[in-house]
């Protein structure tokens, strides 16, 4: 991230200095402004889902879900930790349901939990899985198409499912291979 950020930033600054130097500051400020707007949008999403997930956590509901999924999460992420497994299970279930907003906070907590055990493998695997999208029902896109007057808004369901599967499986495969090579 550090390298990409630095390279893109410097390259853009140099280009902008040559083409239109007066735009540099205004685009930086514009970027900062849209990040605040984005943070507000995200806060709304997280407020709803983290409120709900706190209820699920306190009432013991997420423990039940985690217990059900434990054989799976334990195997995939190679961790025995109770808390980490619970967060992982909730992250995966939210993702599958297409509740991306709810999945992110769980993932962040899981990554922090795994960090305590310095389980580097699981942290990055979780990132790989989340970053390739594993949602079964692309709710946002279907809603968008319906809004635009599509005749059958949900006919992208099957292609999306296939592509999601392809991307996640490929990424996990590459990650496992990459780990072998670089160690």
């Amino acid at each position, binding site marked *: *991230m550090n390298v*990409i*950020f630095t390279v*893109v930033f410097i*390259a853009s600054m140099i*280009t*902008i200095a040559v083409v239109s130097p007066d*735009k540099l500051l205004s*685009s*930086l400020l514009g*970027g*900062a402004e*849209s*990040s*605040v707007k984005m*943070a507000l949008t*995200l806060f709304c999403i*997280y*407020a709803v889902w983290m*409120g709900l997930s*706190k*209820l*699920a956590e*306190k*009432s*013991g*509901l997420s423990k039940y879900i985690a217990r059900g999924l434990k054989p799976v999460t334990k195997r995939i992420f190679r961790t025995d930790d109770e808390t980490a497994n619970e967060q992982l299970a909730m992250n995966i279930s939210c993702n599958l*349901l297409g509740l991306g907003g709810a999945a*992110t906070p769980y*993932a*962040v907590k899981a*990554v922090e939990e795994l960090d305590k055990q310095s389980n*580097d493998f699981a*942290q*990055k695997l*979780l*990132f*790989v899985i*989340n*970053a*390739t*999208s594993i949602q079964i*029902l*692309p709710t*946002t*896109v279907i809603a*968008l*198409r319906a809004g*635009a007057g*599509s005749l*059958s808004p949900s006919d*992208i369901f099957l*292609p*999306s499912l296939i*592509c999601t599967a*392809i*991307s996640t499986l490929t*990424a996990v495969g590459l*990650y496992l291979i*990459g780990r072998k090579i670089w160690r």
Partner: protein
Amino acid sequence: MALIIPVIFIFVFLFAVIKKVSVYDCFTEGISEAVKFTVSLLPCLAAIFMMCALFEASGLSDMLTDFLSPAFGFLGIPKELTKLVLIKPFSGSGSLAYLNEIISTYGADSYIARCACVCFGSSETVFYISAVYFAGLKVKKLAMPIICVLTATLISTVAACLICRIL
């Protein structure tokens, strides 16, 4: 399918009531965590958005789009989608706006729009996720996982364009 979300909410609330959780206090506690979480994200968001704005304003993003279009075309990705594919890893809202534009320009049921929808739905904001997940942690060597994810995303994009021709 529209019922999924109401059902989840009602179920969780009822379950909490049955388990005698003080719903209001608990819900508020969750939101206060959301406040902290959002604030902790803000530095990453600001930096990434500044980078994107700069990249866009400098014209480099257009140059990159023009430069990569032929290569993408070779892989079977229509040139109308190049920008969407390039923006998606960085910005969810940016690519959503662009997806909207594609849908209204080409019509919701056109090949381009369907392709764009599938690409959008089956990929994620890779750089944003990596920034959020690993903010404040000392996890090193993230390049390898990121490359894996980007390669896989490209492969699934190619697959999306192929599958949309058939299905």
